[in-house]
């Protein structure tokens, strides 16, 4: 084993442990929120909203990082990646997250992950220093991730030309060079990641401009909302794509099936997805009638269109890889398969909500957390945990499907479905999201919150078992010498 690959392995193992610890902490915050809504415990609104802000930002951060860790690790098969940049991103992420938790818990910063303008300037109950510290912590995270993304992209373009990285040569018959699907998806996703991070940088600069101008410069609320959702929606979508890149690369390998080949339609689908994803965020502004109608309609059409390449290519490919053939099932490809199913079902909920005439009855109700928790908690998280298992077992252990694994998966599925159904039913009952406690008129709210908390705890138990299995192997990797 050479020194470079050991260093990459160690940093990846470190990432995985940190990500899972933060994941468990954030799930606990989520359960506390549902318990408070269910009136089982009593927290002040300020505590509830600092928990909510921390939960949202941490979850987005760690699952984005998890996708990047996996892609960085697998990219080493094709191109040489920089260990220094990976380490740099890790250090900045840790500093950024620590600062974030300081702003929320010591500074009582509680604007939600959306930090919609001008709420951070009128955040009641928070310390005055928390807003600038929040912006600084976002800057640190943004710089770390931007450098990482640009570095990975630069490495890809050292080996592949522009056309090859985007697999454009596959539009012609009999291309001479084959682009691995993994390279195409990674390139396409990195483009989106960079765009979303730049949107975040612009938001931060505009916030700082107003902060330091002492009222001479005032931002436009509509522009800020557009930019914040450009950042938030796009990065949340791209982290799913990072997970899909991993599936394209290793699903065949772990299943004893041939590796997926690049074709013209895979190339077309991902190139389309790259464009669609950058304008789909308009669906967050349907209820802002001031946004021009053309953009609203584009928002709905693009949200629909974005589902076509995913469904017709990725879902179809995984179905084709499994249907009617003998597959060596292990925890890894089971998690991948389950994750794709969760992703599709969450996507159905998302398409329903992305329809303007439905959105007027669903916008900012619990339907919204319902669908994004579906493709995160039951989609993207499973992609990443699948990768973590594969990564941790390939050097330390053998992949076997034990009885315990089957029980854990059952817990995960039962917990996941129960906690998501509590969200969906509440959404259909017009229960608003982001309420620390429910007004007495909304009778089903507290009841469903209790159900949600119960099932989320079952989900947490499954995650704890996964964490134990993965972390113990990661520690073995961390203590390995380069012998």
């Amino acid at each position, binding site marked *: 084993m050479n020194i470079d690959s050991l260093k990459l392995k160690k940093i990846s193992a470190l990432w995985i442990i940190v990500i899972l610890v933060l994941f468990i902490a954030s799930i606990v915050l989520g359960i506390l929120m549902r318990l408070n809504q269910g009136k089982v415990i009593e927290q002040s*609104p*300020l505590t509830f*909203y600092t928990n909510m802000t921390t939960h949202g930002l941490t979850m987005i951060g760690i699952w984005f990082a998890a996708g990047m860790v996996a892609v960085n690790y697998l990219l080493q098969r094709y191109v040489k990646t920089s260990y220094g940049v990976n380490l740099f991103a890790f250090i900045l992420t840790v500093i950024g997250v620590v600062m974030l938790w300081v702003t929320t818990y010591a500074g009582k910063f*509680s*604007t*939600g992950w959306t930090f*919609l303008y*001008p*709420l951070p300037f009128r*955040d*009641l109950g928070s310390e005055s220093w928390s807003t600038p510290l929040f912006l600084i912590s976002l800057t640190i995270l943004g710089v770390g991730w931007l450098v990482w993304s640009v570095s990975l992209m630069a490495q890809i373009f050292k080996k592949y030309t522009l056309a090859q990285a985007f697999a454009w040569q596959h539009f012609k018959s009999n291309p001479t060079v084959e682009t691995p699907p993994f390279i195409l998806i990674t390139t396409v996703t990195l483009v989106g990641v960079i765009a979303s991070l730049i949107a975040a940088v612009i938001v931060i600069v505009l916030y700082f401009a107003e902060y330091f101008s002492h009222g001479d410069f005032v931002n436009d*609320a*509509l522009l800020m*909302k557009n930019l914040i959702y450009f950042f938030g929606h796009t990065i949340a979508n791209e982290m799913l794509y990072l997970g899909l890149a991993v599936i394209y690369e290793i699903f065949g390998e772990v299943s004893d099936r041939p590796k997926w080949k690049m074709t013209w339609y895979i190339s077309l689908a991902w190139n389309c997805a790259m464009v669609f994803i950058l304008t789909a965020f308009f669906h967050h502004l349907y*209820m*802002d*009638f*001031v946004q021009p*109608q053309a953009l609203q309609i584009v928002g*709905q*059409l693009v949200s*629909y*269109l974005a*589902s*076509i390449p995913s469904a*017709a290519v990725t879902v*179809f490919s995984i*179905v*084709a890889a499994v*249907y*009617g*053939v*003998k*597959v060596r*099932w292990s925890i890894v490809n089971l998690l991948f*398969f389950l994750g*794709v*199913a969760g992703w*599709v*079902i969450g996507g*159905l*909920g998302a*398409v*329903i909500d992305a329809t*303007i*005439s*439905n959105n*007027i*009855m669903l*916008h*900012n*109700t619990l339907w919204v957390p319902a669908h994004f928790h579906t493709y995160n908690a039951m989609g993207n998280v499973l992609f990443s945990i699948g990768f973590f298992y594969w990564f941790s077992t390939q050097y330390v252990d053998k992949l076997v499907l034990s009885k315990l694994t089957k029980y854990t998966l059952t817990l995960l599925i039962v917990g996941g479905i129960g906690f998501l159904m509590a969200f969906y039913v509440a959404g*259909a009952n*017009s229960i*608003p999201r982001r309420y*620390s*406690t429910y*007004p007495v*008129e909304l*009778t089903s709210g507290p009841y469903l919150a209790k159900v949600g908390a119960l099932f989320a705890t079952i989900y947490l138990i499954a995650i704890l078992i996964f964490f134990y299995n993965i972390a113990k192997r990661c520690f073995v990797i961390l203590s390995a010498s380069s012998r």
Partner: protein
Amino acid sequence: MQQHSIMLFFMLLVGIGTIFFVSIFMSSLKADNDSTGVKNLLKKRFWFTLILIVVLGIFAAATLPKSPYFTYANETPSTVIHVGTMQFSFFLSTKPIDPKSPSGETIEIPHDQLVEFRVTSFDVNHGFAVYDPSMRLITQVQAMPGYVNNLRYKFTEPGEYHIFCLEFCGTGHPVMQTTFKVI
């Protein structure tokens, strides 16, 4: 589509999806070493994509005209209700609201008449969501500082309607509410 038919439609889709994925998974368990899987993959993929595009196209064509920007656009409202929002209260008035000293009044709206809510915010982003007497969300719009959003609606059922804030606006977000009557 009302919320409960949306939920029913969604559950139907989830059911189909679950059966689909479970049967795919089961087929792989049953398969032996000689099984070859799906044949004519490209052709099937083509038909699947085509059907998906047609279904989504029909869905878009059916739903887009029902968007709130187009409903009641050709009618003249019988009343205007001015809505001012602030952390953490609503001001509803038939008269324009002075942002410097906002005040509201008790609102009664006659049923079956078109009403136009002119919604704005005096501080941060808020939501203006109207719940009918059975506590079902029937319409909503965002309240954004610097802008006025015009929401038109025709109430058919008399009774007490609630208004809740549906955009997170700070610690008092869940207590921000008011009511009006439809007569």
